C-alpha cells in the first residue's frame, strides 16, 4: 500500500515536459496550499511571477543563451514559468530566515505539483546583473529570486535519480 513515506520517496526531478497547457486554477490551488509553509514572525516573505505564452518567451529571450543553455531550454520547453522571490534584508540573519521560508514554500509547490501529476524543475543561480530579465519580470529592488520554476505535465515518468543516503550522516548524542 502507498503511504506518505513512499509518496515522498517516489517524487522525481522532471526536466522533460509535454506541451499540454497547465490549467491556471490548478496552480492557484497549489500555491494557496503551499503558502502554509513555516515562516518566522509571519513575514510571508514571498511573491510570485506567473509567466506563460508570450510573456514567458520574452523572459527566455532576455537570457544569454550561450551562458545558460539549460535554463533557457527548460523555460522554453515547460508550459509554465513561475518565478518565486524572497524579500531581501540588510539584517543578514533575517534575510537568511526569509530565504529559508521561501525554500520551504518551493518544496511545498514541488510536492503538491507531483501529486497533481505535474513535474517541476527548480532553477537557482546567481542572477545579479540580469537587468532586462528583472525588468520584464517586475522584480523589485528589495527582492531576490529564490527559484525560477519550470512546471508542466510529464510523460513518461522520469527515472528516479540516485538515492541520497543520510543514514551515515547522523551522529547520535
Amino acid at each position, binding site marked *: 500500500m*502507498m503511504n*506518505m*513515506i513512499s509518496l*515522498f*520517496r517516489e*517524487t*522525481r*526531478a522532471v526536466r522533460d515536459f509535454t506541451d499540454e497547457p497547465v490549467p491556471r486554477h490548478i496552480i*492557484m*490551488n497549489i*500555491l*494557496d*496550499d*503551499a*503558502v*502554509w*509553509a*513555516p515562516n518566522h514572525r509571519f513575514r*510571508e516573505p*514571498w*511573491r510570485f*511571477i*506567473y*509567466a*506563460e505564452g508570450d*510573456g514567458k518567451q*520574452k523572459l527566455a529571450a532576455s537570457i544569454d543563451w550561450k551562458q545558460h543553455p539549460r535554463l533557457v531550454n527548460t523555460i522554453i520547453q515547460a508550459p509554465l514559468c513561475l518565478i518565486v522571490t524572497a524579500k531581501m534584508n540588510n539584517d543578514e*540573519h533575517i534575510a*537568511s530566515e526569509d*530565504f*529559508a521560508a521561501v*525554500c*520551504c514554500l*518551493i*518544496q*511545498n509547490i*514541488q*510536492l*503538491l505539483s507531483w*501529486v*497533481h*501529476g505535474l513535474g517541476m524543475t*527548480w532553477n*537557482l*543561480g*546567481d542572477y545579479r546583473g540580469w537587468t532586462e530579465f528583472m525588468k*520584464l*519580470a517586475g522584480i523589485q529592488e528589495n527582492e531576490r529570486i529564490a*527559484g525560477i520554476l519550470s512546471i508542466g505535465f510529464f510523460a513518461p515518468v522520469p527515472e528516479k*535519480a540516485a*538515492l*541520497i*543516503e*543520510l*543514514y551515515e*550522516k*547522523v*551522529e*547520535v*548524542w
Partner: protein
Amino acid sequence: MAGQRDVGEKENWSTHMSQLVRERRTIRSFSEHPLSQEIVIDRLQAAAQSVFNEKGKLPCRFVYIASREGKEKAVSLIMSVYAEHKLYKWLPSKVGQMMAERIISIPAFLVVVQEMEESKEMCERDYASICAMLQSFSLLAWDCGIGLVWNTEPYMRKQSFATDMGLKRGERIVTILFMGNYERISKGKQRTPVMKKISFL
C-alpha cells in the same frame, strides 16, 4: 480498469498532501514521551529522497540529541554562549535553571549542519536544498505525530559554539530543530491569498 484506479488514487493523494501541507503547525510544547530514533531517521532519509540537488548529494550532516546526558551537554553549551555574548541582559540563575530544564525536557534536538562548498553560489543552492529537505521532513514527521520548531538564532553562527558542538572547519549550523510528539495544536494563522502576491506576464 487499472487506469481508473490510478486516477482515483491520484485524487486521493492530492487531497492528502494538501491537508498535510495546510495542517502542519510549528509545535513549541511537547509531550515528554521519548521518540523512536529509528522512525525519525527513516523519515529524514525519506525526506532527502524528495529533493533534487544537482550533484545528487546533499552536503549536510546531523547531530541527533535525545539522551539525557546529550541534551544536558547541548543545553549547557547553549546557555554558555548566551552568557558569553550577553544575548540576554541578565537572568537570575533560578530562571536560567528553569529555562535549561524546560529545554532538556523536550524529547529530541536535531542539529542540522551544512558542509560549505567553495563557491558562494553553490552554498546558496545547497542551503536551499537543505531547507527544502527540512520542509519535507517536517511534513513527514507531522504525518506520524511528531511536531517540531525550527530554531534559528544568531548564536548558532558563533565560532565558539560551533567548535563546542564538534563542527569542523567549513561547516555551519543551519538550524536546530526541537521536536517531540504533539498534544495540543494551536490554530494556524491564515495566510495572505496568493492572488494578492502574484503578477501575471
